[in-house]
């Protein structure tokens, strides 16, 4: 698993539950170190152990942690760069949804080693979509759910999102886009690279 993913898990736990909690998770997972290197590669098992340790140490169900992590990635002040990269997907939430199909390709363009979940968006009727998410990490669909919620907020869109369980190993998320521009949302300045 790419270090960026593991590092994101680490940052999420540290920024949401505090440094002591993260260190406890690292110990519980038997990592043997305190910091993931975002530009190195780790066995999938390491990611799995970290997530399991987080469930044990933080005493929260895995799907809750996963969803919170998705929200964190797309909205926390320490992950502003990721938020910006997501916003490049489209000018409004509808546009953004359609860009999800190409997100893995887009990501590969920037960082060929980074393996993101396979995403497939299907439009069922106007404003009604189903997103299939397939990943080697169990519960990745819940991360996506949190990420979509936060991104919809960021765009100021009114959306109803629901995890619909799994289908042949893929997480199914139903997306009901009620209004693309419901609230003002956060501004996105194409040229504001200073948002680091």
């Amino acid at each position, binding site marked *: 698993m790419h270090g960026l993913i593991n590092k994101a898990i680490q940052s999420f736990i540290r920024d949401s539950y505090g440094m002591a909690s993260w260190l406890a998770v690292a110990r519980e997972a038997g990592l043997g170190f305190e910091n993931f290197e975002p530009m190195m590669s780790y066995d999938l098992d390491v990611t799995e152990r970290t997530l399991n340790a987080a469930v044990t140490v933080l005493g929260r169900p895995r799907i809750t942690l996963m969803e919170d992590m998705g929200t964190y990635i797309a909205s926390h002040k320490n992950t502003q760069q990721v938020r910006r990269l997501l916003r490049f997907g489209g000018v409004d939430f509808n*546009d953004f949804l359609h860009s999800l199909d190409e997100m893995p390709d887009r990501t590969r363009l920037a960082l060929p080693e980074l393996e993101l979940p396979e995403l497939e968006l299907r439009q069922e009727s106007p404003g009604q979509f189903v997103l299939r998410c397939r990943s080697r990490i169990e519960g990745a669909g819940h991360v996506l759910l949190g990420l979509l919620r936060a991104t919809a907020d960021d765009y100021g869109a009114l959306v109803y999102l629901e995890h619909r369980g799994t289908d042949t190993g893929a997480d199914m998320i139903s997306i009901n886009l009620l209004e693309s521009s419901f609230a003002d949302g956060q501004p996105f300045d194409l040229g504001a690279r200073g948002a680091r």
Partner: protein
Amino acid sequence: MGNPLILVRGGRDDARLRRSVGTRIGRGGKPVPAVPFRAGNAYGAVAGPPRSCRKTVHGMKTTSHKAVDLDAASLGRLMPLHLVVAADGTVLSHGPTVGKLFGQDPLIGRPFLDAFSIRRPGDVSGIEDLRTRTGQRLFLVQSGSPHQTFRGLVVPIAASDRLLVNLSFGIGVVEAVSAHHLTDSDFAPTDLAIELLYLVEAKQLIMTELNGLNRRLEGAKNTAEEQALTDTLTGLRNRRALDLAFGRLAGAGTPFALLHIDLDFFKEVNDSLGHAAGDEVLREVARVLTSETRKSDTVARVGGDEFVILYADLAEIGAISRIANRIVERLSKPVRFEDTTCHVSASIGIAVSETYARPDPEQMLADADQALYASKKAGRRQARLFRSDGSMELQGAETGLRVD
């Protein structure tokens, strides 16, 4: 080329296509290719009026050379950075993004070659020169903003003497977006400018992480190297570090001195007072030796109670002798350890590089060792210098150090 395009976004029939005027559409095909098309027509925009729009999207079938009639809004959406230039060289109209670049300065009626200068090719000075460059790639600069560069293309407008100039920011797009606060809608939906901006930001994020990784690796490497060259008990250099320093000095060709120091009665301290006391003595010796050396010198612990000092750029026997005797004197002072006092002293053997035609580390160490042995044999607590004639000259007469 003859395959009809299937729109993925925006609908399949003409009516829905017409409703998609000005929005971004994608193209699909049956069977759906594993990697969707992302270039050229695949990422299309539809421009009105409807007749020509159909020809644009299903455009590969077009056989007639009939001029395409576009209204200004459609032209502006297709090419937000275009200008229409009259026969006399003045700007007749332009796309919306061009307007943003010039802000309050009205561009209509201004000579095109006054608003922009052509950097390449270099021989375009009038509008007629520009006309001869039809179809070629041009490099332009915005007048008054020498850093705002463009790529451009000039084509004649059919059945008129007007010229259509289309511009692109090229790789300067990143700066242009910041400088003019451009947004997604300032680019044609077919333009890959946004993708370029995305890549630039993604690259920056990755570079930041890589630089961080490099810094951490550099730090870890330095620490590992330091540890590999350090004696952990005393913090002095170890045998490996000594060998490296020896090699450097021998290679440099400047004179240097070697002091081989062995503690007297250290075993007794260790045996009677324990290792902790012995360790404290060794640390105190290290402090003394470090204080008797400069940064450029090397102090190494090479055995249990054996030390070697390399003095760089030091050849004068008198100076070496004074230092050696001072060390003997200072190391003879008792060392406090908890409630007890440890008594040791030091014997020193000295060799200087100038004794040798070509100083060899092994030879110098062996000779210094002989001098050290002579010091021990003569009663310890003294320093002796190895001489080229093989004698072991006692050092210390001039400092008045009493030899026991």
